[in-house]
């Protein structure tokens, strides 16, 4: 059983690609996210969402090498200490709470949790009398020189959503 799969970066599509022993294809992409920048008085750069997609329709038997491969891609992403990952899942998305908990377990078992910190915030807020629930996480490198600005912006999401 391989420890992890080798992967390639496709310059045309900006995706990381790998195929498992069961011939299941996965793609991983990082997209620039401007949510924190939009709530900050300081310019916030290098904040991304990671999107992982099993491209093949076939059902994948459990394969621990998939998780290790994704772990390795994300570990490489954090070689730039200024990079941060934001995760926001609203409750109207399918299985939001389950995904949030899976994301947490995945981080706790990752190989990079010694130098990357994850903070969570489940935000309850009200708009026009309706209550919403937002699952959020932020992952940042412990040596990120801009972390003060990033954390201020991340924390301000809840403050603004709960303002009158």
């Amino acid at each position, binding site marked *: 059983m391989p420890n992890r799969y080798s992967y390639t970066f496709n310059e045309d599509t*900006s995706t990381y690609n790998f195929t498992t022993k069961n011939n299941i294809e996965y793609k991983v992409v990082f997209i620039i996210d401007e949510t924190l920048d939009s709530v900050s008085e300081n310019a916030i750069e290098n904040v991304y969402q990671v999107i992982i997609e099993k491209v093949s329709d076939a059902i994948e038997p459990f394969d621990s090498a998939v998780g290790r491969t994704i772990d390795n891609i994300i570990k490489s992403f954090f070689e730039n200490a200024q990079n941060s990952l934001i995760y926001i899942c609203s409750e109207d*998305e399918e299985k939001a709470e389950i995904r949030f908990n899976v994301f947490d377990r995945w981080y706790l078992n990752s190989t990079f949790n010694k130098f990357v910190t994850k903070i969570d915030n489940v935000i309850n807020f009200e708009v026009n009398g309706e209550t919403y629930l937002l699952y959020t996480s932020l992952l940042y490198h412990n040596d990120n020189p801009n972390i003060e600005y990033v954390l201020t912006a991340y924390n301000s999401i809840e403050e603004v959503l709960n303002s009158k």
Partner: protein
Amino acid sequence: SITKMVADKTIVRSFLKGNTSIEAVTQKGIKFAKPL
């Protein structure tokens, strides 16, 4: 901003599946990260 973030995820997933073109993705202002 959060609504856009959720919508972007949906478009990118569709792109990764091959159901949406890269042009449609970039038209939405979605930018991809390059590796180191």
